[in-house]
């Protein structure tokens, strides 16, 4: 026996919250993208916990898709950040104008 599913879900929720706080309150485009990564990882943890709770492999399949989407998102996001840095010389969103 492991833990109740609610504890896994709570862990995922708190992780998601940290990621959202990081994306909202930080001042740097790279940290905002890191916040998105934390949120996607929290979603994957919730999916894997749900797969164990209902004893079906479906949740793990969706966690795999979350991983793939995270990889695609981060490559595009970092390319955009490099592009923005070359145009404006800064990665702080307030200083773009």
């Amino acid at each position, binding site marked *: 026996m492991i833990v109740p*599913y609610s504890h896994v*879900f709570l862990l995922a929720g708190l*992780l998601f919250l940290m990621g959202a706080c990081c994306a909202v309150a930080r001042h740097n485009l*790279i940290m905002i993208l890191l916040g998105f990564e934390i949120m996607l990882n929290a979603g994957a943890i919730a999916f894997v916990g749900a797969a164990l709770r209902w004893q079906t492999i479906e949740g793990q*399949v969706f*966690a795999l898709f979350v991983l793939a989407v995270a990889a695609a998102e981060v490559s*595009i996001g970092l390319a955009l950040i490099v592009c923005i840095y070359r145009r404006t010389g800064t990665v702080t969103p307030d200083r773009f104008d």
Partner: protein
Amino acid sequence: MTFQTILFYLLAALILSATGLAVTRRNLVHAAVYLVMSFFGSALLFYLLGAPLLAALEVIIYAGAIMVLFLFIIMMLGGEALTEKFHPRRQWLPAAGMAALFAAVGILTVLHEPAASTPLQPAVATPARFGHYLFKHHWLAIEIVSLLLLVALIGALLIARRVGRPKGPQAEEPA
């Protein structure tokens, strides 16, 4: 309380503290390295929850590829990208207040759900079974995801190229 239960709470504490440290660091390299620790913890958690293939993929993709890409970009941009100033307090206090409210409501909702307190039964999905299931029932989604990765690759190449092109002719025209 079994060994696996203790292991779960240890891993949860490790993941939460590493992520908390990562989102509050001012130095971006420190933040990225703390986040690598957090993703290693997530990989161990996946293994504990019976997903060995996903644990391996988490180490390879998240802790390996994605975080190395982040570190590469942080090092490449350097200077201003390395450290940052935080927002003034009046700007992040509302965000923190809303986060606390969300956390309180979430904890209350989850703990008061009667069906959620049934303990999980340990089970392991072997990589072979996982792969068979994946390609039997979700082959279309796999194709779509591979297309998405291809589009991301082409998009990243295109975004990186368009910046170089306008600068080239402008630099050559005065000469």
